[in-house]
């Protein structure tokens, strides 16, 4: 394949980007990438025919935490997989034409492939943590894809925004998952769904569900996290069509739908979903009115559709689940083609601003056809799958008592959706409002025309013959019902007959359709005045919006970080030492006071058995130990007297050698040995450095001797606390079982008589390996600091010579 690729990249040699790093891709490599989703689609269709759902596959992954690498394929997963692989195939073909000759097309395909695999993992995972892993992977690949044109600042900003919003939502969700797994004692999703209806709504469980909802809402761009999705339109069109319309943003809906059987009976779950969904559906559609960019208009209508999906999940009843499944399918079949159409228009006419576009049907007949078919489905005209979905929604709504908010939100959504469909399908292709200044516009190549046409046609075919989609929609709807619910099939039969062979309750149906269409048409015809009026009003309210809050938070974080850093990391070593000593003294002393029962319940029962501080029995120390202690004390006292740093370092060395002697006499020759060596190296290095500093003319005496009493106080406080701790811990006899074990097993298990060394290199070898790595890394971290110090000095030193 590499050879083909190299050869054909020459064919694209005319592209200016060839000079950049990276190569244009040949047809063969593009086809090879496209084969992946196509093969996955074929495999999926075969598997759906060959196997009974649900299929489960699991293997232990982290047995100590009870996490399985578990995957489960049921109706809902199958529906999502169909979208991922079906739309994915179209996107991969489309990307081949859209970025033909682009030097980084390979990177795009790589990221798209990674994204697709993450999505497949996400919608089949049957373990919370496996799901989370793939979920985060979609966020990361989305970041890469939104920021594909990373030379553009807006692109980078949007990518960062998408990552920050969905990433922080993902963190909240992770916390929720941890709580869920604790509450149910398992992280298996199907087990949790089975157990949840019987579970009591404890505060922990409620918090868990709320956190999971935050994660789902950020991913699916629900109010108030809606602002990131239209900005993510900075991505290339195939990415927008795939990630930000057909698949990734539906993950939030998927998760909520997946958990609906578990928590769907909770009142606040229903209300939250309905309220947030309705608010998003209505408000996002209104925001679409603000836009002039076709892609952003479509993006807002996508947000609104996601809101509708969340709303529908929040509705109880079989009809609602059927409507969710139908709308998921319908939306993918009309919105992805419309995005493709927007991409084609951008690609061939050079702009996506609707004011500059018009009358493109002659130049781009096939694109216009695809737009028309998709637009019909989006508007919900009969004989399209959009109509089937709309009918399902209406019947689901009719079955429930609805909040007024839901009615309003859905009403606004329905009407403006029709208008948006009109803008995308009619205005830019059939109306003369656009300038005639687009002589260069011409039809896009086949790779750009085929995917939207096929997807839009599929929408029409399924609309005409809904029974094809019926088994899938029924299976998906069943997956949104509690496990073990009896009579699911019966409960679903009626709404499904209704959905798939549209009810001929003609009066109500036509009435609803007519109302939506008429209002939609009015919005369509008055799009421009509405746009101007709304833009004026909304422009004044921008500072209230969550996008503005996001920007504020983004600015505040580094500012507060700088504030705290300036306060805490001021770079004065003496102050650090004093703070460290005083804090340690306070904590140790406090622990002893608390533990001793002086302030509360006792912890050190052995040491404070009698109510007071029980000191260890007095045993006179040997001469050697006394000598070592005297040496330590001498060194410490001398260090407090001298002003020259060199002398102080030597005194500190005395303390070190004194402690080494103490270790030696106390029976720890290894430690003593190490201590001697460390002290020697330390004194040599420190003394040499100080000598050099002196030669460089730096002062080597301490700067402010007046601070000494304070320093003495801090040192005394710490010494007192430390002494107390040693006394307290010494009062309890030390448990010798561990050292006895090591002494006993050292020779038979590890062939070594030096127990310390055997522990280091054998019993606890992994710890030692980690410590070695830390030693190396800490050197790696300090080396640049030392080097930059020298650089700074070097440049200063050279200046006078000039």
């Amino acid at each position, binding site marked *: 394949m590499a050879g083909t690729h190299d050869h054909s990249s020459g064919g694209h040699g005319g592209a200016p980007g060839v000079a950049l790093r990276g190569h244009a891709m040949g047809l063969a490599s593009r086809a090879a990438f496209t084969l992946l989703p196509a093969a996955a689609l074929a495999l999926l269709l075969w598997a759906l025919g060959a196997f009974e759902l649900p299929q489960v596959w699991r293997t232990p992954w982290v047995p100590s935490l009870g996490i399985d690498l578990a995957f489960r394929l049921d109706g809902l997963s199958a529906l999502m997989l169909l979208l991922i692989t079906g739309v994915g195939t179209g996107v991969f073909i489309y990307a081949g034409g859209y970025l033909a000759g682009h030097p980084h097309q390979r990177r795009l395909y790589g990221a798209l492939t990674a994204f697709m695999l993450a999505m497949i993992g996400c919608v089949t995972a049957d373990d919370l943590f496996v799901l989370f892993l793939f979920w985060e992977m979609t966020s990361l690949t989305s970041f890469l894809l939104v920021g594909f044109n990373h030379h553009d600042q807006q692109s980078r900003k949007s990518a960062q925004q998408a990552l920050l919003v969905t990433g922080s939502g993902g963190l909240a969700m992770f916390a929720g998952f941890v709580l869920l797994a604790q509450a149910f004692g398992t992280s298996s999703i199907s087990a949790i769904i089975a157990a949840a209806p019987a579970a009591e709504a404890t505060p922990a469980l409620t918090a868990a569900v709320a956190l999971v909802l935050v994660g789902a809402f950020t991913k699916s761009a629900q109010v108030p996290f809606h602002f990131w999705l239209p900005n993510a339109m900075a991505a290339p069109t195939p990415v927008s069509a795939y990630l930000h319309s057909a698949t990734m943003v539906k993950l939030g809906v998927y998760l909520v739908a997946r958990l609906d059987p578990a928590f769907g009976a909770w009142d606040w779950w229903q209300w939250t979903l309905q309220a947030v969904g309705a608010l998003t559906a209505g408000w996002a559609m209104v925001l679409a009115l603000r836009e002039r960019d076709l892609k952003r208009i479509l993006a807002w209508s996508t947000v609104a559709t996601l809101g509708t999906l969340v709303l529908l999940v929040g509705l109880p009843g079989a009809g609602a689940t059927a409507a969710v499944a139908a709308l998921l399918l319908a939306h993918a079949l009309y919105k992805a083609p419309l995005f493709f159409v927007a991409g084609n228009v951008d690609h061939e006419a050079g702009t996506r601003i609707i004011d500059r576009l018009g009358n493109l049907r002659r130049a781009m007949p096939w694109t216009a056809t695809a737009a028309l078919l998709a637009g019909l489905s989006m508007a919900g005209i009969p004989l399209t799958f959009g109509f089937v979905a709309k009918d399902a929604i209406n019947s689901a709504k009719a079955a429930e008592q609805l909040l007024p908010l839901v009615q309003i939100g859905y009403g606004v959504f329905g009407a403006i959706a029709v208008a948006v469909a009109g803008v995308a399908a009619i205005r830019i292709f059939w109306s003369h409002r656009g300038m005639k200044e687009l002589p260069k516009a011409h039809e896009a190549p086949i790779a750009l025309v085929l995917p939207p046409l096929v997807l839009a046609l599929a929408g029409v075919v399924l609309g005409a013959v809904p029974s094809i989609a019926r088994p899938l929609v029924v299976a998906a709807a069943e997956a949104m019902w509690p496990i073990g619910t009896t009579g699911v099939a019966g409960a679903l039969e009626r709404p499904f007959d209704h959905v798939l062979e549209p009810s001929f309750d003609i009066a109500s149906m036509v009435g609803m359709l007519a109302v939506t269409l008429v209002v939609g048409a009015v919005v369509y015809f008055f799009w421009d005045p509405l746009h101007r009026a709304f833009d004026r009003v909304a422009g004044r309210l921008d500072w209230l919006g969550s996008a503005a809050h996001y920007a504020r938070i983004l600015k505040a974080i580094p500012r507060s970080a700088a504030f705290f850093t300036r306060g805490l990391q001021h770079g004065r070593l003496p102050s650090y030492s004093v703070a460290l000593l005083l804090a340690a003294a306070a904590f140790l002393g406090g622990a002893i006071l608390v533990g001793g029962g002086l302030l509360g319940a006792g912890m050190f029962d052995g040491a404070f058995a009698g109510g007071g501080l029980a000191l260890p029995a007095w045993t006179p120390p040997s001469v050697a130990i006394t000598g070592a202690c005297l040496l330590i004390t001498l060194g410490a006292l001398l260090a407090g007297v001298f002003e020259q740093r060199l002398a102080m370092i030597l005194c500190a060395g005395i303390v070190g050698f004194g402690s080494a002697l103490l270790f030696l006499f106390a029976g720890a*020759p*290894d430690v003593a*040995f*190490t201590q001697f*060596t*460390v002290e*020697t*190296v330390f004194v*040599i*290095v420190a003394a*040499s*450095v100080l000598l*050099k500093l002196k*030669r*460089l003319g730096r002062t080597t005496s301490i700067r402010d001797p007046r601070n000494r009493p304070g320093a003495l106080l801090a040192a005394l406080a710490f010494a007192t606390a430390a002494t107390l701790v040693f006394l307290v811990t010494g009062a309890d006899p030390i448990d010798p079982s561990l050292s006895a074990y090591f002494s006993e097993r050292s020779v038979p298990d*590890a*062939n*070594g*008589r*030096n127990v*310390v*060394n*055997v522990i*280091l*290199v*054998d019993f606890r*070898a*992994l710890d*030692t*390996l980690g410590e*070695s*790595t830390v*030693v*190396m890394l*800490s*050197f*790696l971290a*300090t*080396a*640049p600091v*030392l*080097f930059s*110090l*020298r*650089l700074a*000095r*070097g*440049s200063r*030193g*050279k200046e006078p010579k000039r």
Partner: protein
Amino acid sequence: MKRRMNARVVVLETVVAPLYWIILAASVWILLRGHNEPGGGFIGGLVAVGATVLWGAARGPSSARHKLPFGDPVLLAAVGVLASAVSGIPAWFVGASYLTHQSFMLPLGFTELWVSTVMLFDAGVYLCVWGAVSGFGLGLLAIDDDAGDEGADAAAPRARATTKAARRARR
């Protein structure tokens, strides 16, 4: 090699050459005896650091750096960590868990030699400590060297090439 003449201590400069090798030999001895007597890789490494730092104090940090194996403390430390990490792998071949040390008697004809992966592990610790700590010490000692000085940079990856060139140039 620019070094201020007043920084030189002729006696130390002369004595340090034999001393360096004696200390290194001692450090290896400490490393090897460590399994049964007081000693081991960590202490041995520190003693070796003593030798390097001594050389650095007497004849200049970059000269001491060139005397290190691989001529670069980072590389030395990395090789050490790698050796320790690799020493755990043979355990897999006998079905034991990572870092379960394997040993056997190597017949040499006249005697038998006890060989164990634990030696490789400890030698890795030795090299890591030697490289990292002496790199740190030499870095401190070098703060009055000119920044542009060849091979004076502790962390730069170009260290090896330049050290070889420098060594050749000095001859």
